[in-house]
Structures are given as C-alpha cells and as structure tokens.
C-alpha cells in the first residue's frame, strides 16, 4: 500500500485498483469452487442436537467415521462432536448393543462368541455394511515383485514359498511378518486370507520389556526389500512414510478405493452399522444408517478416509 501512495497516485485510484484486485481474487476463488464435483443431496440429513443424538459405540477404526457423522448430523465442528462420542472397541460395543446400552454400533463383523452372546440374550443383530475395507499386503518399494496371487500369499504364509525368486523376485528369503495373535489384523489375516490354513510361526524378536526382562515377541514389520507385511487399507493409504512401501496387487488387481469399492480387489471386507433387529424403522439409529448409505453419507465417509460401500 505504501508503494502506491509513494508513487503519487491518489486514494480514489487506489480504491479502484483494490476493488479490481478483490474482484480477481473472488473470481479465482469461485473458479476453484466450480471445479468441485458436488452432488446435490439425495436425502435430507436427519438433524440432532448433542442431547438427542443417540449413544453410538463401535470399534477403534470406525471412530473417525462416527465423529464425522456426528458432526454432520449435530451440525457442529468435528472437534466438538468428538467430545460426545465414545467407542469402546469392538467386543465391548457388541456387549453394549446386546445389553441395550447403545442402539447403534459401527464395527467389524461379530465373532462367534458375540453372536452366541446375542443369541443367549434373545437379541437378533442386524448388520448393515456401510463402508468397504481392503486387506492389503505391502513390501519395500524396491522389491521387484508387484503382484501375487492369493494362493501365492497363502503359500508364503504356509511356508511353502520361502524365496522371492519363486514368485518372480530376487534370490532372497522371504521374511513374512505377522501380527500378534488375537489382534484385529491377525484375525483379519486368518479369516480373509488363510481361510482355515495355519500359518507358519512368524519371525520373533527379543524385546526388552518393562522391568528389563527379555521377552519374545512377534517381530514388527521392517521395511526391507525381503520383507512382506499386511494391514488394512484404511491405515496404509494416508499413513506417514507410505511412499517408502508399496502395496501389492493381488490376482492382478491393485488395492485402491475403486477396486475395493467395486469388489474386484479380492481381499475385501466391510465395516458395519449394527442394530438390534427390533430397532423401530424410524428410530434415530436407523435414520442415521439410512443417511450414511445415501450419496451424501457415503461422500462424508470417503472424506473421512474410508472406501464407499457402493
């Protein structure tokens, strides 16, 4: 501004220029907005307050979904909505649903134990898939192998394939990392990939635990060219450092939002909204699920980092 005044121009001219500049800025901003493909809402979002929003529970991995949903439907910033939402992890969420302490949970599919608990309580659970998830395998970016068949993956973890050379890679042994028993990823690995086949013992490492004692623990994935590990797609895609690893195609299909969403990627699961089947059709819980399955709801889920269900 002082440059203009020093140049001898009067304030009137400056104002004009300022208006012009502002106009340019507005046009630019509008231009940016015009490029965004915003679909009109196909369903009016139900509206709640912090007092009327139902008690929702769920797994850890669905917390961001639940928070984004709460923020949208309570019309408050996510930072505020977050303070009203608690997920007590998968198992406890199922227990809370069965005990009628909550009416809606966002979780993975129930275990046999949880189904039995529901049955014992005379509760029928209704599972509605709301977002897709892929189970992905990752290696170091320098590893020449980029695709494995599902059978090859099983053979690696069965211990039948032990060298990358056998599957088109370098002549180095495969270090196949696993996760701790009973962890979510290991359960997913056994259910979605191994399909009843028992994997070989994973690499172990000695860890100095608390009190200085040495313990044996499942070795954690090391990003080395000879290593292979696994995770859920949700955590891997935006994770810091993912430029140093690569995801492997499975049966020729690369894991990405589109292939997970359309089901062409073969190792696929979902996160579910679960209610008791006697939940009234117009209840807040069902209103929330219905909206989440709408285009706008699915868009919100995608913006929160998940893969659309449809």
């Amino acid at each position, binding site marked *: *501004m002082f*440059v*203009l005044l020093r*140049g001898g*121009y009067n304030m009137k*001219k*400056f104002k*004009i*220029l*300022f*208006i*012009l*500049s502002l106009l*340019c*800025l507005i046009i630019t901003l509008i231009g940016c907005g015009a490029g965004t493909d915003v679909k009109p809402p196909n369903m009016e979002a139900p509206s709640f307050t*912090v007092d009327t929003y139902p*008690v929702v529970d769920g*797994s*850890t*991995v669905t*917390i*961001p979904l639940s*928070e984004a949903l709460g923020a949208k439907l309570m019309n408050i910033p996510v*930072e*505020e909505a*977050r*303070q*009203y*939402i*608690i997920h007590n*992890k*998968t198992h406890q969420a199922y227990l809370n649903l069965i005990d009628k302490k909550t009416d809606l949970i966002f979780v993975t599919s129930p275990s046999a134990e949880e189904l039995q608990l529901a049955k014992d309580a005379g509760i029928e659970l209704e599972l509605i898939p709301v977002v897709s998830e892929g189970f992905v395998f990752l290696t170091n970016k320098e590893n020449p192998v980029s695709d494995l068949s599902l059978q090859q993956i099983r053979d690696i973890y069965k211990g039948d394939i032990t060298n990358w050379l056998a599957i088109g890679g370098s002549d180095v042994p495969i270090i196949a990392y696993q*996760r*701790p028993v*009973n*962890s*979510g*990823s*290991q359960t997913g690995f056994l259910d979605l990939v191994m399909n009843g086949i028992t994997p070989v013992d994973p690499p172990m490492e000695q*860890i*100095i*635990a*608390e009190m*200085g004692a*040495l313990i044996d*623990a499942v070795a*954690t*994935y090391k990003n080395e060219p000879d290593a292979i590990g696994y*995770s*859920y797609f*949700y*955590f*891997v*895609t*935006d*994770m*810091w*450092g993912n430029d140093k690893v690569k995801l492997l195609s499975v049966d020729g299909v690369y894991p990405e939002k589109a292939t997970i969403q359309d089901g062409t990627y073969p190792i696929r699961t979902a996160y579910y909204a679960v209610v008791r089947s006697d939940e009234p059709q117009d209840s807040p819980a069902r209103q929330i699920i219905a909206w989440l399955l709408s285009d706008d709801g699915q868009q919100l889920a995608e913006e929160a*980092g998940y893969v659309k269900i449809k």
Partner: protein
Amino acid sequence: MLKLSSLLPVLSSSTKEQRNDKLIKYRECMKIALISLLIIPVIATMSSCGDASTSSKVINSPVVIPYLVKNPIEVVTIEKTDVPEFYNRTITIKGLLDKDVEQSINDELTSIYTKTIDGELPPYRGIKQLIREDAKPTSNTIDSNMSYNYNNVASIAIYGNRSYDNNAYVGLMEAYNVDLNTGKQITLKDVFADDVDYKSILNDYISKLLMKSNSTDESDNYFGVGSYALKLVAPFKGITDSQKFFLYPGGLALIIDYSNPEFDTGLYATTFYVTFQELGDSVAIAERFYDPSINIFEGNKSPVFEFIPSANLNWEQKQNSETIDNINIYQSISYSKDSPDQAIIKAESLYSIDVEVLAKLKDMIIPSTDSWSSLEQYVWASSYGQYTNVTRNTSMYFNSKWISSNENYCFDNEGNVVELADIFVPGFDYKTRIMSGLKNAIKQTNAPSEYNIDNLYNSIQFSINGMDLSFTTEAVKFDEASNSPIYFALTYEEIGCENLTIFKMKDR
C-alpha cells in the same frame, strides 16, 4: 453485464496522450496491485513464521552436543499441600538480568497454571459423555517441573489431574519452552538445525514406534513395546508446527493429547520420548540460544556443565540363572553395541563368573546354618558424553550374611582407560576434595567404625556421570551381617568445572 470500463473512470474523457499516460500509470498500478496480492500473503506467512521462531541464529548440521551448560537461575517452587485433593505445586524462575524478560516468563507460566486448573474441560475424545455438566470434581491437582534448564533455554512441564464424582479422570499435560534471552517461546523448529527437515525426522521416528507397537490393531496395551502402547484411530499423517513438546536433558518429549486426534489417548496425555542421540547431529538446541560470551544471568557464577546421558540404543542384553553346588547364581549384562570396543571387551570379561569368588563363597558357606546361598552379578555399561563406564556389582548371600562389591572402569570414546588423575586439571588438589567427600559419606551412612581412610581412598574407583563423578570403595564391614562398599558422589558444580579436563574438548 458489468463492464470493465465502468470501473475505470480514470481512463475516460481525456486526450489520447493523457489516456496513454493514464494507461501506463494504470498498468503500473495493476502490476503493483497484482504483485501486492502475491507478496502480501508471503510477507504475512514469513512474519508469522518469525513470531514462532525466536532465533535469528542460523545453525546447520552436523551439530555435536558434547555437554550442556546449566542455567544459573533459581527455580522458585510454590507448593500448596493443605488439601491433598487440590495439591498444587508450581514453579517460577528468578535470576535473569533482564527483569522484564523474567517477569514475562513468570506471567506466562502463571497464566498456564491458571488455565490448567480453572480451564474448561479439555476437548478429549468422549469427554462430554464421560463427564457431564453436573459432575463434581473430587480432586484437581497441578504439578510442574523444570524438565530442561540449559544453554539459555528452559523447559517447564506442567501436569494437571482432575477426578470427578463419577470416577472419571482427566489428565492434562502442558509445556512451556522459552528462550531465556528474550522470553519468547521456542518451537520444535528451533530445536533443530536449520538445514534439516525436523518434521520428517520426528515423523519417521514416530512411524517406527507405531509399527513396533502394532498401533493399528484394536487391542489392549499388551502388544505395546515398553511404554509405547500407542493406538491409532486414523492414519498418522505427521506432526504439525504446533506439536506440543518439552525438553529434557537427554532429548525431547512429544506430548500427545487431544491435539493429536489420530491417536487414542483416552482422557489423558501421553508422551513420546525421543533422545537427542536418536536424532543424531540435527539438534541445535544447545547452540542456537547460547553464546558463552554473553551473560544473561545475575551474578558471575562459573558455568556448570553436564553430560547428556546416552540413550539405550543398539542394546545387547544377556542374563543367566543356574544353580551350582546349591548356590543360586544369577548374572546379567547390558551395554550398547555402540560402546567403544575396549569397553565391550571389558564388560564381557566381567560377565563371566569369577571362579575365585565362587570358590571363596563355597568355602565360607556353613551348610548346616543356612538353607540357601546366592551369588548375583550385574554388569552394565553406561555412557555420558564421550565417556563409557563399565560396572560390575557382585552380591553374595550366605549364612544370613551379605557381602557386596563394586568395580568401575571408565573409557573414553577412543577406548582408552581413563584414570582418576586424567579427570582433573594439573595442579588441582583433587585428593583433598575426594577425601572430604569420602569422610562425609562415612558419616552419613553409619559406615564402619574401624577402617583406614587411606586404604579406602586408594581403593577408590569412579564413574563419569551426567552431573557428577561417583566413587566407590572396596567393601568394608558395616556390621556382622554385611560388607559393602561406600558410595558417594561429587557434583561437577562442587568440584568446579574449571578443575575438570573432561569438559575441555571444545570451547563453548
């Protein structure tokens, strides 16, 4: 439709020359306006960066921190203990030459304490479900400590704890990191050399921790490694410019709380401790704010130096338990593989059970009077600055008697054995100082009445530590049931750093 000319009266109703002249001026104006549009945000960004970073001193890596220089300020502690549920311990500082800076620092600290005690519920995930508006606090405590106080930088960690009548518990952790030269807060960026990408360094470090702790798995904490039982609820995309942290002598602690919503921390904060050693030669905190030629403190005290303890990296650890001739034997060894070779060789040699000691123990045991006997032996190496101490502690228990001994060996980073005389500058009467420390220790520990002070002195072995030299004597008889060495330490401040050679490697 809006015409451009209608916005430009400056161009209308004039002669051709006038119009040309005006057009030129208009174009110049437009150029200036457009340039302004581009430059103003840049200037604004730069000025905001300037606010965050208090130092204009450019420090490039590699940076070596051989030792730290303690700030000679007084830490004033105010403690309110009358109602334990509302315990309150806060600190302020005293001793800066610039009283305005001192006052601003103390004002800021007071403001943080007030917010920590009286502030609204912190925006933790789920907090308003767990602590309803009608919940009554049953305790509300605050504690603070000076976690780092070196090289003209102070770091104060503040801990708030509240509990409510529904058993809910909330933990708060705040940090105040300040440049004592100016009273301005320092940022994580200031901790690092200018030519390093500090976010990448820290993000890589955190990623490794997350991997180790299987953080993406929904589980209880038992999959965690040590204290790093970290759980993610969303992908970790990296820290931000405003990441909370505090410094401690060996490194920095990142505070993870509601400001890091990708982590599941419950209603309390947690910390990632990152040692300076792990951060390598990229840490500029000791250099950036300290100029040995400028004194910012009251009084003209001699500077006091301290070594940074080495982190437990690349760790080797072994242990063994066995029973030989009814004697329960336990031995362990731990050292960093990064220690000098000579120190490792010494440590490994000490790990072996000394057959003579074992034979002596066997001879002393009277089988009929005691049901069991043991020999325990712990060997470890610890490094401070460029020095590595190798220690063996041996304890024998038999016939209801307990005998312990201690051996210390010190090496420099080239593997040379460091002798006691090497530590002190020529001409300094260290014997008198150590002898005085020994006599004090004897007095304070109810040590034996029968001893020869000269023999004890001659048996002395030492370790070079972060803040002091520690000494150990041969085992002496304390009473009928126990023989043990006498331990004592002399701080570098007590000795006077000017009398020590170990800080002479670099003029700071």
